């Protein structure tokens, strides 16, 4: 075991507490500010009220933006599930020249800054496709999102495939099952949890994405982050944003809980 002096242990605890304070105080300030009656947030809060929660609950632009976010994230997730799983199977099952390059290609859209990805897509759409008469519109935003979501599915599925026993697939083929049947009945159940975890991550990544969306969203269409961004740029309506932000924090508990459950299922051999 690591032997540490009393002083060292106390300093470690101090650092841990400092990090936790640093990570959670700002989030707490947002949550408390959502109950701030004032138009412009400031600290300390003078009057607590539910005014802005009531306002946000029926505010149409928020609902429209939320719907857009869900649609885009769902479509991007489905595309990423298909493509990410295919790449994972290709890299797992075959050793070929250019394997490392493909791995890098999949990581690239998330490793390159969002502004570069966004500007690249926007440049292609506006400077090259538009003159040709092609207007991708809404679908252009989905294409961009799907591109950087692939890596999430790939990483999860690939990590699981590497740990799987290939003899089960061989046994299935020996018993007369076709490739699809083997995939459906033998392979898929073994990486199902990783598949779901990848889907969850892809959805969350797309749902949260701002910068690429700024450059690829068609005019007049807001996703939830775009709506928040526009409100942040306006000085006067700070408090509605805090309500939406608090809701996002609360919603984020769902994937965390789900991923905990998935890990547990995984440990139990699911």
């Amino acid at each position: 075991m690591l032997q540490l002096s009393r002083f060292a242990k106390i300093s470690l605890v101090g650092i841990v507490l400092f990090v936790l304070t640093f990570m959670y105080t700002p989030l707490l300030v947002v949550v408390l500010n959502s109950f701030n009656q004032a138009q412009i947030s400031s600290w300390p809060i003078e009057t607590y009220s539910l005014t802005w929660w009531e306002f946000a609950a029926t505010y149409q632009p928020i609902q429209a933006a939320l719907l857009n976010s869900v649609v885009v994230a769902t479509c991007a997730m489905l595309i990423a599930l298909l493509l990410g799983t295919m790449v994972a199977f290709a890299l797992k099952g075959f050793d070929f020249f250019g394997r490392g390059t493909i791995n890098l290609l999949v990581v690239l859209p998330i490793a390159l800054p969002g502004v570069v990805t966004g500007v690249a897509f926007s440049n292609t759409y506006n400077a090259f496709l538009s003159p040709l008469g092609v207007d991708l519109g809404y679908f252009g935003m989905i294409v961009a999102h799907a591109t950087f979501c692939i890596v999430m599915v790939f990483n999860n599925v690939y990590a699981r495939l590497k740990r799987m026993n290939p003899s089960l697939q061989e046994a299935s083929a020996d018993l007369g099952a076709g490739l699809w049947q083997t995939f459906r009945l033998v392979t898929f159940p073994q990486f199902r949890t990783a598949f779901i975890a990848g889907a969850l991550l892809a959805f969350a990544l797309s749902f949260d994405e701002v910068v690429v969306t700024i450059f690829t969203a068609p005019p007049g269409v807001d996703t939830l982050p775009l709506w928040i961004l526009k409100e942040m740029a306006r000085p006067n309506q700070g408090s509605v944003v805090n309500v939406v932000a608090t809701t996002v924090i609360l919603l984020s508990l769902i994937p965390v809980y789900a991923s905990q459950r998935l890990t547990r299922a995984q440990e139990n051999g699911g």
Partner: protein
Amino acid sequence: MSTIKNYKATRPVSSYLIKHSRVRLVGLLALPILWIVGVYILSLFLLLITAFWFVDPFTSLVRPGFTLESFNLLFTTPAYIATSIRTLFIAICVTIICILFAVPLGIYMAKVASSRVRNLLAVAITLPLWAGYLVKLIAMRLVFSEQGFFNWALAPIGIKGPGFSVPIVILTLTYLWFPYMALPVFTAIRQIPSNLFDASSDLGAKGFMTIYRIVLPLIVPAIIAGSVFTFSLSLGDYLAARFTGGKTQMIGSIIASNINLNPPIAAAFSMVPISFVVIYLVVARRTGSLERM
């Protein structure tokens, strides 16, 4: 013999694919590669081409052509050079701060805390990852604004925050990307076998010596993996600078503000973070760190 014939007859596609693994590989890769190369890499390539085009001074439309003017501006305009250096400085600071806090946190979680506390801390560090990028920007704005939480909390001891400026941008980016460093570092420290520590202390090393000589060398790949995120995400960010940096400009700010006015400049400037990140990724791949991402 007859059963095999029968099998072949019922599953012609599967038996063909099982025999021809190349076909299977191509079938699996065609669509994803078409997507990533045909959509993404092509877009990056078109962006590179745009960097050599120019803006017609009369119509202010982009004209195809070949000029190095945009790259020339990039390397000769003092404001652009200053912004590149500032951005690099910010990204390096963020990465260093993340490492400085991730290592002790990881050591505590992996080797000191009880398993209950360890699991709680693991959740506590993962949770903010999901909380939303803009939510965290809003949070930092509320904390560090003039009438914000920070100034209020530290007023009794006479400390006043610096206001929205470069230090707050560094802090905000650290806040955004810290979990990306903390998680791989923690995982790497957890994987260090305990008997290494026993051996180290048997040989007379004190705690800090063990951390310096045993733990640090073993977690370098994890630190590089984490820094790919902290570094490249900070390098390309511009919203943190816009909302918590006052007048601070970063590379991303220039790209974003030029994409409609002067696309060739924006395109040329995009090559700066692209080259930084690609160099970083290639180095990271050499050290095997990408496997840990």
